[in-house]
């Protein structure tokens, strides 16, 4: 059995990074819990290859938006079109099979497992050896495990976390946990990577590292990124386009410069942030 594993660091390195293909289109969606309206009539799109930021004050509905995209919440109205297929309801694991990976605001690692196992678990979908071979751990099971380990090691190398390979993630400092979580998402070889506040609670140096990893993932691995972030500096540096939400409604959408100049944004977001 031959498992094809591509080299994550070699593929996709063209300079025409962003294509015109709209990989994700969110059309007029609304979501509410009981009486609380989390998202109201929001529409935006993500193009293949770009870094798309979603910003907004607390409670703006950013995380809910990501939850809708990867199928954890189901919006009451509107459609989400991903890779040309519109859908209303989708189970999270289906989103995963279609190439949507995700990190969480509060690190959602598997605390009892090592860094290596956490990242290996990102390959679950790509592993096929059946229970019989798994029991004997020879043949396809072993080969597959080795092939995927090679891939995972490249991600570990990419994120520079070699020395914590065997450490249970529960014992790692917060910044490293976030990095491992990014690693787990990247090993899924996602087409679309959703990052929920990847730099929350980090110091300046950790933020710089994380920014570098996100840029590298975008440029070298060709991953489309949609991220939520509070640090405006980071958002302006990283992203190609920025969507601004406030109280579940979209108040601006455009390039970082446009958004920064937008009066509604300044009032709603920056005003709040500078208080």
């Amino acid at each position, binding site marked *: 059995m031959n498992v094809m594993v591509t080299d994550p660091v070699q593929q996709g390195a063209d300079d025409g990074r962003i294509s015109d293909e709209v990989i994700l289109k969110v059309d007029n969606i609304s979501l509410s819990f009981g009486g609380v309206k989390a998202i109201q009539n929001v529409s935006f799109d993500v193009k293949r290859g770009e870094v798309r930021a979603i910003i907004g004050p607390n409670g703006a509905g950013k995380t809910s938006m990501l939850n809708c995209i990867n199928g954890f919440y189901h919006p009451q109205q509107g459609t989400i079109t991903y890779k040309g297929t519109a859908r209303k309801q989708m189970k999270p694991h289906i989103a995963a099979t279609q190439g949507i990976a995700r990190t969480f605001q509060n690190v959602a690692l598997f605390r009892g497992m090592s860094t290596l196992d956490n990242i290996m678990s990102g390959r679950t979908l790509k592993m096929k050896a059946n229970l019989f071979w798994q029991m004997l751990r020879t043949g396809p099971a072993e080969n597959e495990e080795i092939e995927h380990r090679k891939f995972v*090691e490249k991600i570990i190398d990419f994120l520079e976390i070699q020395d914590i390979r065997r450490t249970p993630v529960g014992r790692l400092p917060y910044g490293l946990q976030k990095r491992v979580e990014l690693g787990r998402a990247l090993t899924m070889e996602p087409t679309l990577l959703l990052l929920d506040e990847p730099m929350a609670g980090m110091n300046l140096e950790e933020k710089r590292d994380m920014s570098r990893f996100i840029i590298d993932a975008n*440029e*070298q691995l060709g991953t489309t990124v949609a991220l939520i972030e509070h640090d405006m500096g980071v958002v302006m540096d990283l992203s190609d386009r920025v969507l601004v939400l406030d109280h579940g409604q979209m108040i601006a959408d455009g390039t970082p410069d446009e958004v920064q100049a937008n009066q509604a944004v300044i009032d709603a977001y920056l005003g709040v942030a500078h208080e």
Partner: protein
Amino acid sequence: MSEAQTSRPLEADFDTIPKLLLRNAKRFADRPACRVKDLGIWQTFTWSEVRDQVRDLSIGLHSLGIERGQTIAIAGDNLPRLYWTFTATQALGAIPVPVYQDSVADEMAYVLEHAGVTVAVVENQEQVDKLLSISDQVPLLQHIVYSDPRGLVKYDHTHLHSYEALQKLGAEQAAANAQLDDWWLGEINATTGDDTSVMLYTSGTTGRPKGVILSGTNFVRTAANANRFDKLNETDEIIAYLPMAWVGDHIFSYAQAFEAGFCVACPESPSTAVSDRREIGPTFFFAPPRLFEAQLTDIQVRMQDAGWFKRMMFDNCLKIAKRCGEKILEGRFVNPYDRLMYFFGNILVYGPLRNQLGFSRLRVGYTAGEAIGPEIFSFYRSLGINLKQLYGQTEASVYVTMQPDGEIYPDTVGKPAPEVEIEIADNGEVMFRSPGVFKEYYKNPEGTAETKTPDGWVHSGDAGFIDGRGHLVIIDRAKDVGKLNDGSVFAPKYIENKLKFYPEIGEAVVVGDGRDYAGAMINIDMNSVSSWAERNNVIYASYQELADHPEVYEMIRRRIVEMNVDLAKEDRMKGSQIKRFLVLHKELDADDGELTRTLKIRRAFVADRYGPFIESLYDGSARAQISTEMTFEDGRKGIIEGDVRVEDVSAPANVPVQEAAE
């Protein structure tokens, strides 16, 4: 000794490293040639694989226009790929020039320009950026080859090549054209041992670095001799972690490895070198004294956290080891009781400790470069680690003297290595001649003439003497050695080192050139003396206060007497016994310009700043003051004030008084 460990005769046919590669690819085809910790495992290459890797790279480099006689720069941490670049370059008859990977852009520019480098093979983006920043200063440099593509994908690749692509290109060409392999073999055979093998730039303390040209024979002969001397063969293993631009690494991890056919392991990164060493378990190892020193301190610190029982066991075992460990290592007679105790100690402490340090499999370890504290040296040896000293120089392809098994003395650097002749010049300078002696300094005939006599003797620049046992003792840099007014030799560093081996003494400056006698300015070792103070309820507020304490003075005086007694036993040195001393009011500090960054004393600077103190050592005054304005590194100005007592060393020790008890 098993059959594999008996020495082989020298093989005249293989007089260059590429020829040794071809030999090893046949003789040790499936034995590991090198390993590198990468992607979580030790990626291992056999000699026959290395041959193919090197050939492909050679052909790839050739396609970049590399011809016989050209120079190629190599910069990066120890990596098999960079070692292969050495061989691939040498196979073409071109000359590799390794550059210190941490040198700043300017230093690198100088070397590359001086050596006329046309192609540089480097590790990663950091080095590429450095080279690009100096590209206008190095007009000859045409191509840069990088090993790690990270961050470089978006760079302009007209003159930039990935190692992988270059090697693949070579492989494709070789596959397409069967004659290319023959051509390559022909190139190797066309190179003789007399041709230049490598050019190493010595990081001189003064002036610009000099390019030392060394031939294939230099390395192959020296390596062969060293391998025979310590019976190293293809079953051995070394970990390569010292800078590739340093001659030591070039001989230990490259020439000797190729000559004996042993395996070279490269750590994952400098920060994991220690744990990687544990995994590899080198059988042959080199480290500078400060590494052994730091490691010993680390052991002591970690053991302080142990429970009382474990600490007691540890201390007792070390006592036993101190008593008989070295004797057992050297196969000398030890009474059965001690032998039994050592056996238990080996189970409880020495064995586990060797395991922790990664020395369980070590057969030979060397240290050199500076004097190693006898306590430290003995500590390792008493654990059963065969640590030895050598004396070497770039100009000699390293080996000048080595300590033979069974003749280990902490204060000597051993006997002349095989095929090495040694003489002591009239001014005390050590001169040597050997097959490893360099050809010349590159583009520097004056320098060559100054260092190397027409009949092949090299001025080492170090002063030393041969002791009664036929061992070389290095006392100081020749230019620092002076004379007392009575004409006897005065070697300050030699005496300072002796003083520094006492735990209470942190640093010492000894003066005496052109004076009647030697005097010393002492820095106490804060760790050691403060813990003494704690134990003896001596109260102090600062270093200055502690240094001035009468009991501290008394303690230092006792140590100096002890050393004087020691010196009195050495014919050449007994004139240099210290007659007066003072304890400095502050610690000498690199930040204040008193030490170099490598913590060596800047003698002239100290002599200038502490002039009044030095005078007081000779004018008989009981106190001395200084007050100097100085500029700190950050631009602040301050006044250094000091007021210290000067004391006589009471017992003049021409006659050995009594053996100072340990």
